[in-house]
């Protein structure tokens, strides 16, 4: 059993390596005739190089569509099981699912249940989110009673004051604008650069078959 698992993991790693490298080279280098210098066939060669990448992307689109079917099956099975266990919310979810499908079939020209119910609910949630974030910000000093928590609260207060439409607060508005343009942008770029580096390293590990999620 263990032997078969090792073979399966090796096949998965080799397939991942081959497909990954093909896609990487094709997507990075494809469609650029300048790479082939003065070769009269440069245009055709560049297009040929881009072909595997394009084919793999098309395959990905098909898999994405298939994954939605898997998702729906998972959703229905999970909540059917939970409903059988006496979970009321799962029953409501399944009833809503059936109602949305039925509505679409029986009243094809009408406003869908999604537009009529879910969008207003999401708008209400968005409004609630605003209050939640303010409450969360207010609680920060109880969770992070250090210099960084204090600094965060101070910055929030300065930015909020700076956004008020009073001419007396113009210096605070200018300071708030500077905070958002320079330190906040610098911090955001640093975080994004870190994430980009992390992505490259994880991508390299995936290509080398070192990623456990690919090896199973």
């Amino acid at each position, binding site marked *: 059993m263990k032997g078969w698992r090792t073979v399966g993991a090796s096949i998965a790693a080799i397939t991942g390596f081959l497909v990954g490298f093909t896609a990487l080279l094709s997507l990075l280098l494809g469609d650029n005739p*300048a790479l082939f210098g003065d070769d009269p066939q440069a245009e055709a060669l560049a297009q040929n190089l881009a072909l595997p990448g394009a084919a793999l992307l098309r395959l990905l689109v098909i898999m994405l569509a298939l994954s939605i079917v898997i998702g729906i099956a998972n*959703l229905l099975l999970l909540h059917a099981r939970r409903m059988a266990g006496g979970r009321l919310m799962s029953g409501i979810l399944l009833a809503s699912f059936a109602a949305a499908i039925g509505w679409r079939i029986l009243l094809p020209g009408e406003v869908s249940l999604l537009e009529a119910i879910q969008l207003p609910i999401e708008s209400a949630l968005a409004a609630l989110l605003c209050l939640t974030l303010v*409450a969360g910000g207010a609680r920060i000093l109880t969770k992070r009673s250090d210099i960084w928590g204090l600094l965060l609260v101070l910055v929030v207060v300065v930015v909020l004051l700076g956004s008020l439409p009073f001419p007396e607060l113009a210096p605070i508005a200018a300071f708030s604008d500077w905070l958002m343009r320079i330190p906040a942008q610098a911090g955001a770029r640093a975080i994004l650069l870190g994430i980009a*580096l*992390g992505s490259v390293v994880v991508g390299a*590990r995936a290509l080398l078959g070192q*990623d456990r*999620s690919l090896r*199973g």
Partner: protein
Amino acid sequence: METTTQQVLSLLLVFATIVLVFAARILQARAGSRRKLRSIPAFERIPNWGSQAIEADSPLHLAFGSASIGEDNTTTALANAELFQRIIANNSAGDSPPTLSTSAPTTIPLASATVAAAWTGADGARNLHWYPQGKRALGYAAGISAVIGEDAPAAHILAGSFGMELGLILDSAGCNRQGSLAVSDQLEGQAVAFAMADEALIGEELFIAPAYVADASRLPAAAIVMDIWRALLMILVAAALVMGIAGQLPWLSWQLLALVALVALVLGVILWTLRRRRAEA
């Protein structure tokens, strides 16, 4: 930048990373050269939450958010899967399989395989929730809030791709007195995580998280490569800054810069040696 130059530089970056991953792995495997990871307090809470979950017979909630295979956050999904696999394996002595949630359909097979590979009990993937929404999914947050109420997880490890909706999930967790660790590859989600979660990771810490959760010889190699790239990036940014300033200061010469760099290097080596000796002592 010209397209060809851009392509060549991208390829160089990828190949250099691959070589570094290999080299770091080989060096790491050699006896006596194992590198200790710097301490991150957030990771120290995870074993406690795992023990609480086993004792209380309640699940851990592990959330991918909108991290998905085939989109720009594929690597986030892969890093999450590895982290979750290790957390599940460490806590598979319990009776309650973990609750996993995602809003991306392509992550469902990944999450299912993650549980199957790590959970030793039966029917591990029975609590895999998919709430069909895209990025910044308020519907996803609402669905998870319902799960928080019904399943009562011991703690939430929200590591993936989240937007502002993370605030609703963390607020729900806080109201139910459940622990939370959060990190997001989106800036809005990261800000909310820092402000509202019990423990927060920042940016690239998500990608080296598996190294902290399990003691595996190969994983710190990724952390080493990240550190190398980060140091190179800092040197490049500093050099660009100095060159920018140099254009405005007539007294600044290359000789002076070389001298300052040499002094900084010597000081760095002395400090590093002192620190190492103190650690050994």
